[in-house]
């Protein structure tokens, strides 16, 4: 990267009239590759008695499935691959930035907002499918008609808060890591690095849990 450590800047590529952040895309593909390798490694020689990596993945998957079961009921099973993939992608992506020479794909607002918008689109599609279009529209005017403003703000705020929370945490973490590395080398950055591992998992978890929560709202039939 010619830009050195200029934080938050991206090397750009133009294709079909659109601009792409190539470093984000490359990190995303690396993350995808890692996730695919891990998932396939965990499920390659599946055994009834779980061992090693399979055990870890199973714990994560079982936890997510349990959360989905309690929040969405049995209807949520169809979304399970999406949620599990989301969590794995975010965990791996968040932690990837902690390796020197790599950056997190989630330190780009395009990634986080992309994921958040995708979730929100699914939420609204499911809501219309579950409640019917008229009921879905009516939902915005409840309990009183003036509430439509608040409801719309809420709906708009959902993807924004979801994406900016993750983006801000990860980008700030990486910035702070670099800054601390320059100011007080070795010990303090190491501490921060350890904390960032934790933050990465927590942020992935929060993003996933909120997605489940939004999705479960749209799965409920009437209210």
């Amino acid at each position, binding site marked *: 990267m010619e830009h050195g450590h200029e934080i938050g800047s991206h090397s750009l590529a133009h294709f079909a009239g659109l601009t792409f952040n190539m470093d984000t895309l490359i990190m995303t*593909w690396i993350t995808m590759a890692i*996730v695919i390798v891990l998932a396939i490694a965990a499920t390659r020689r599946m055994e009834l008695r779980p061992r090693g990596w399979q055990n870890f993945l*199973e714990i994560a*998957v079982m936890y997510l499935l349990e959360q989905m079961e309690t929040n969405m009921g049995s209807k949520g099973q169809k979304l399970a691959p999406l949620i599990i993939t989301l969590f794995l992608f975010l965990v791996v992506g968040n932690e990837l930035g902690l390796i020197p020479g790599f950056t997190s794909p989630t330190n*780009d607002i395009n990634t986080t907002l*992309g994921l958040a918008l995708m979730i929100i689109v699914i939420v609204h599609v499911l809501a219309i499918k579950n409640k019917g279009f008229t009921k879905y529209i009516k939902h915005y005017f409840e309990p009183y008609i003036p509430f439509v403003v608040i409801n719309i703000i809420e709906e708009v705020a959902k993807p924004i808060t979801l994406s900016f929370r993750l983006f801000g945490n990860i980008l700030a973490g990486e910035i702070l890591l670099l800054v601390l590395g320059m100011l007080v080398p070795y010990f303090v950055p190491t501490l921060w690095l350890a904390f960032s591992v934790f933050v990465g998992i927590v942020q992935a978890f929060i993003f996933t849990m909120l997605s489940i929560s939004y999705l479960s709202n749209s799965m409920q039939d009437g209210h």
Partner: protein
Amino acid sequence: MVDFNGTLLAQIVNFLLLVAILTKFAYKPLMQILAERQKKIADAIDAAESERREAEQLKLEYKQQLVEARSKAQVIVENAEKLAEENKEEILKSARAESAYILQKAQEEVARERELALAQLRSEVVALSMAAATKIVTEKMDTELNARMVSDFIEKLDDQKIGGLPC
């Protein structure tokens, strides 16, 4: 720092691609193994439950059998005691009877012996007195005495045996 561009769309596509790949290669086998394990665990629990119930049943049966055996043993012991008591009575009775018989026999024997002894004694006395008498007679007998005795005898004959018959 915050500028939106085509990356956003690319990321959505990337992510959906990842979802598709993972669903095909990881999610399905994982779900399969989870379902399999769940079934296995459920089966194991069911089996354990049924075995436990069976064991309980067996335990109950054994307990009942034990009670039965105990009562049976009690009956047997009681019977044996009763039998022993009866035997004892019988043995005592027969022993008593035998002893009575033996006593009676002994008494009879004693009586007979005594009679025999008496008879012997008597005959001995007779023989002795006869011997004495013979001795006396041989020593003291003379013609005069002999004659008197004969006459006495004849006289007595006249009085007692012949009576008043004319001869």
